[in-house]
């Protein structure tokens, strides 16, 4: 399941830039497929990021985030080797998570 997400965290000049890629269809519930059926909504609703177990970012998403969501965020006060974790929950209750460590640039 870890291949469904990617994470990279780089510390430079006191700021850690975290880049996350998630693999998810992000279906709006309005798309009509090739055989004329409406594809049911299937999208990530909540994303949580933690640094050494402490929440740093909580996001709620609707259907307007693009397929295979991409996110960059920045942290102050993180150190090399600190542990980052990002997890998501979608509207069907499925979840996924990935861990990464803060690296030098």
């Amino acid at each position, binding site marked *: 399941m870890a291949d469904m997400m990617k994470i990279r965290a780089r510390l430079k000049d006191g700021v850690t830039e975290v880049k996350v890629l998630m693999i998810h269809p992000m279906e709006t519930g309005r798309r009509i497929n090739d055989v004329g059926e409406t594809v049911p909504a299937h999208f990530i609703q909540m994303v949580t990021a933690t640094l050494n177990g402490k929440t740093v*970012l909580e996001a709620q998403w609707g259907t307007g985030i693009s397929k295979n*969501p991409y996110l960059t965020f920045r942290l102050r006060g993180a150190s090399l080797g600190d542990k980052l974790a990002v997890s998501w929950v979608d509207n069907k209750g499925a979840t996924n998570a990935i861990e990464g460590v803060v690296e030098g640039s």
Partner: protein
Amino acid sequence: MNRRSILKSCAAVISLLALVPLHALAAAWNRQAFESDKVEGALQGLGVTGDESSPEIEIIAPQMAENGAIIQIEVISRIPGTEAISILAEKNPTPLIANFMFSNGAEPYLITRIKMAETADLKVIVKANDKYYSASRRIEVAVGGCG
């Protein structure tokens, strides 16, 4: 089962229960705001009672997007005490795209990719010290991406 083992198993159940609510305590998905088909309804769902336009919010986005299904946007808030950044596309079937809440050293900054149904204003709402600030940016969309 004697009294001691009952107590023990109760303690085990209680400690399990204590772990579960940690997740449940995290704010539930804001259905009212995300399912609203109007900007006003979405803002109401978010609890935004009125917002003041601010030059301290920067939105970096293409002026013209070929493909409305993938538009990369960057949002920076320079308002001290920024707690949350919400993103809305005014003409999307459900305008509220995302609400980001920052804590414990996270900077009020993000890059993400969004869908836009048609040419419209992208609106950003920043919550700081229980007040709301906003900025808008028009994005021309050649082919809508909200199917």
